[in-house]
């Protein structure tokens, strides 16, 4: 299992590999790294690098690409916002903050982020605790429920919220007969849909953490006569605290970066990500949009740094030899069934939301004519076919490139020594911390003129896909590589193979599970991306998510629902294919990441 406890992970996704828990023992990353680095930091490092031109070239190319497609776009945003007639100036921020229509979104975004992160973490914790510590039935079902939101397009919840709780909504009209009017447009609506979307992040983080807490401690407390409640309060909860803090920070960043849901459901509750977009596409104000993007970037980067460099270092997770297999389960009927009931309630809500999309997609005209029809799917596969084709093609190009590039970076970072290695790792992670809206604005600024003229091409979309989603692949690759003794690779080198051959023949096969996990993640992200790509889609290349947003904007809710269902089907098919490939090619280790599991149980 790849978890955060070594201090390296920032990904919201933990990929679980099917291994018995007691084999999950590997030395803390920092220690290994320092140890290995100390062993290898010899003056001959650079010399050795020059003896391997292919390796040197690889390092240079990776750096050039990271610079061009990660650093440069961000730099362009800073340049545009801080430069006034060739001089450094904060004028644009003074202008920005003096206007109510800019200050409000900042306050709104932060408020919403805090609320969503707390509520989302709470729900994630309930699921994680129930599944790791409580003897409840239907665990598999709950695991699927808690992880499904990850593969769903991010704005599906909003669409569903309208279908359920809008004035013509299933719940408000059919069930409650208009007795209650829900205020879904605005803060409360966003709070609910973002919580239901992002609690999965907390679940996966906390599942990893709770799973890693040595049960011997809890067993000991039990033997000494502590009650289960006391154990929870004085052992489990304190040990899980860094994980909880991590989850809160991760969800906070995700909520800040969320674009699809606020586009649909914000109403008058303006938030930063969408305002930056509207400032650019509506007001034709690049400078103002770039400045808003920086306002959005600052809290995200703070959350990222706190999470990566402070919280995850404070991990109390105990890594001792072999954790004892016995794990106490909460089995007192009252506690057990109240937790089970709570999980069941939450799961029903989630199922209700996704089920509604399925229902909405076969309704003729939502709100006026509820007869059933396949027309919406006909629409999707006729008018929408171009969008589907482009999305599948571009995602399929980006996914393997991103996968290989991520493994190359992971390999270089863990196994090779060269100046700027740390920076390279950091830059590859940066893409993850920066909200999509910011990246999108950076891309149109950076690639709009010669010599880097890419706007309007498929290349800009593919590049955006690759460099947006590379961080998770790099992280899983790094974590996986650190478990593998370098002596195998050293043997290969000693026998005369150079770095590229070693990488291809030895390293890559060894880290296949991480490689495929990266592939799966990237593909899902490509298929559901919207916040960044909305800036770079063009007449020639368009994406399904953009079509959905257009349908929702026009209130063609049933069409939007059908598009969403189709995206999910394609994602599940792709995950199944990747899973199939892993099982066939991945050797003995079976990849068991949550998504594939989701697939199998549907």
């Amino acid at each position, binding site marked *: 299992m790849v978890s955060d406890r070594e201090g390296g992970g920032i990904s919201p996704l933990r990929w679980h590999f099917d291994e018995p828990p007691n084999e999950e023992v590997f030395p803390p990353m920092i220690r290994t790294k320092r140890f290995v680095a100390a062993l290898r930091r010899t003056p001959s490092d650079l010399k050795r690098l020059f003896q391997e031109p292919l390796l040197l070239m690889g390092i240079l190319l990776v750096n050039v690409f990271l610079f061009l497609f990660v650093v440069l776009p961000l730099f362009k945003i800073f340049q545009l916002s801080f430069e006034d007639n060739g001089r450094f100036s904060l004028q644009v921020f003074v202008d920005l903050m003096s206007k109510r229509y800019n200050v409000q979104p900042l306050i709104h975004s932060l408020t919403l982020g805090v609320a969503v992160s707390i509520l989302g973490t709470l729900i994630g914790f309930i699921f994680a605790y129930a599944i790791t510590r409580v003897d409840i039935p239907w665990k598999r079902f709950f695991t699927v429920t808690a992880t499904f939101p990850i593969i769903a397009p991010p704005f599906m919840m909003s669409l569903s919220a309208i279908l359920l709780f809008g004035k*013509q909504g299933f719940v408000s009209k059919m069930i409650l007969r208009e007795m209650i009017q829900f205020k879904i447009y605005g803060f409360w609506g966003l709070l609910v849909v973002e919580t239901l979307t992002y609690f999965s992040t907390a679940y996966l983080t906390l599942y990893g953490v709770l799973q890693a807490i040595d049960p011997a401690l809890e067993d000991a407390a039990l033997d000494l006569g502590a009650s289960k409640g006391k154990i929870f309060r004085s052992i489990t909860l304190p040990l899980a605290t860094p994980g909880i803090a991590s989850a809160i920070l991760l969800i906070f960043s995700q909520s800040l970066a969320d674009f699809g849901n606020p586009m649909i459901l914000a109403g008058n509750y303006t938030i930063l990500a969408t305002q930056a977009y*509207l400032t650019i596409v509506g007001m034709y104000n690049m400078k103002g949009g770039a400045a808003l993007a920086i306002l959005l970037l600052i809290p995200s980067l703070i959350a990222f740094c706190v999470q990566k460099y402070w919280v995850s270092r404070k991990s109390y997770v105990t890594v001792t030899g072999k954790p004892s297999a016995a794990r106490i389960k909460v089995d007192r009927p009252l506690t057990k069934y109240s937790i089970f009931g709570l999980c069941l309630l939450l799961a029903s809500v989630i199922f209700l939301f996704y089920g509604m999309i399925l229902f909405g997609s076969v309704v003729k005209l939502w709100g006026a004519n509820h007869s059933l029809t396949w027309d919406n799917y006909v629409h999707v596969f006729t008018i929408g076919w171009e969008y589907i084709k482009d999305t599948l093609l571009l995602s399929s*190009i980006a996914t393997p490139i991103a996968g290989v590039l991520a493994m190359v970076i992971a390999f270089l970072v863990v196994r090779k020594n060269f100046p700027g290695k740390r920076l390279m790792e950091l830059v590859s992670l940066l893409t993850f911390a920066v909200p999509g809206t910011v990246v999108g604005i950076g891309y149109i600024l950076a690639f709009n003129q010669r010599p880097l003229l890419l706007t309007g091409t498929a290349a800009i979309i593919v590049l955006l896909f690759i460099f947006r989603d590379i961080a998770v692949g790099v992280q899983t690759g790094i974590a996986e590589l650190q478990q593998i003794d370098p002596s195998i690779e050293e043997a290969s080198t000693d026998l005369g193979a150079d770095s590229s051959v070693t990488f291809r023949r030895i390293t890559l096969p060894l880290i296949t599970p991480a490689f495929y996990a990266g592939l799966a993640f990237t593909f899902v992200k490509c298929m559901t991306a919207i916040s960044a790509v909305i800036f770079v889609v063009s007449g020639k290349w368009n994406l399904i998510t953009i079509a959905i947003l257009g349908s929702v904007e026009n209130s063609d809710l049933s069409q939007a629902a059908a598009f969403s269902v189709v995206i999910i089907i394609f994602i599940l098919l792709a995950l199944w294919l990747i899973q199939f490939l892993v099982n066939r090619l991945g050797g003995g280790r079976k990849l068991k990441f949550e998504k594939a599991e989701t697939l199998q149980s549907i």
Partner: protein
Amino acid sequence: MSVLLALWVGTPVLSEAADVLHMYTALDPNEAKVYIEAFIKDTKINVEWVRMSAGEVLTRLKAEAKNPQVSLWFGGPSTEFIAGKKEGLLVPYNSPVGAPFLKGNLKDAEDYWTGFYFGAIGFGNNTHWFEKNKVPYPTSWQDLLKPEFKGQISIAYPYTSGTAFTTLATVCMIMGEDKAFDYWKKLDANIHHYNTSGSACVTQAGLGEIAIGIAFSHDILAKGSSKGYPVKGTFPSEGTGYEIGGLALIKGGSEPELGKKFIDWTLSKRAQDLMQVWFRIPLNPEAEIAAGATKAADVKLINYDEEWAGNNNKRLIEKWRQMIGK
């Protein structure tokens, strides 16, 4: 290897075939498809198109000015085209097909843009709501301020939608700018929310999310009653503004000849007849008008000054945002 692949992906897409017309359209995608498919059938010229709101088209064209991606801008109110002309994004074309009937403000005096339909601003009302609450339909701009409509009205942001900007310019022309902004401040209290797309509020009215959507007459018919929603259109007695829907060639576009063909085709009787599907009023006098569509003679129109609206676009929007705070 990944590096090589990335390079490989980058190169082939930079070159493009010449017999395809690339365009942005601000028409609803379902509607645009009708015209574009008919054009392809008639002329055998292929079309690649993207739908965006008129404001987005303008931004996109501005951003791409050094490297235009399209040759034609199809649909959107003339005020947006006037702004586009001012930005130097368009090139003139005087269509021989339109020459006999495009008079006065139906096209740009210097042919930078060409009009192809007419539509007036009106109110799309959810009939169920009005019956249930026993409230009379709004028939004036002042009616919209009534307290019973609190949180029941929807419109788009004037900075993302041509419809909403036309509305803003219309009230400015009727009341004078200062009074118009006072008016909107009061109106804002009754607004449920602002959309990015101008016609979205009609479906929202149809769905009962709101009671009144402020939109163009053809959108009220096409996206409301004709789809089966309980929506009825009314028009303000003080007079209302209107749009001349336009299309224009893009400066530096790589397919100007195909673009001209598209403009000529759009003005032909054949194409103008098609506009019945969306209840637009065609400008070609030979074309047929959809039954029930709102003609210029049906409503009281103000003397809508497109030039003023187009030239004051930025200023009015900034003022609006400052005041409303959105």
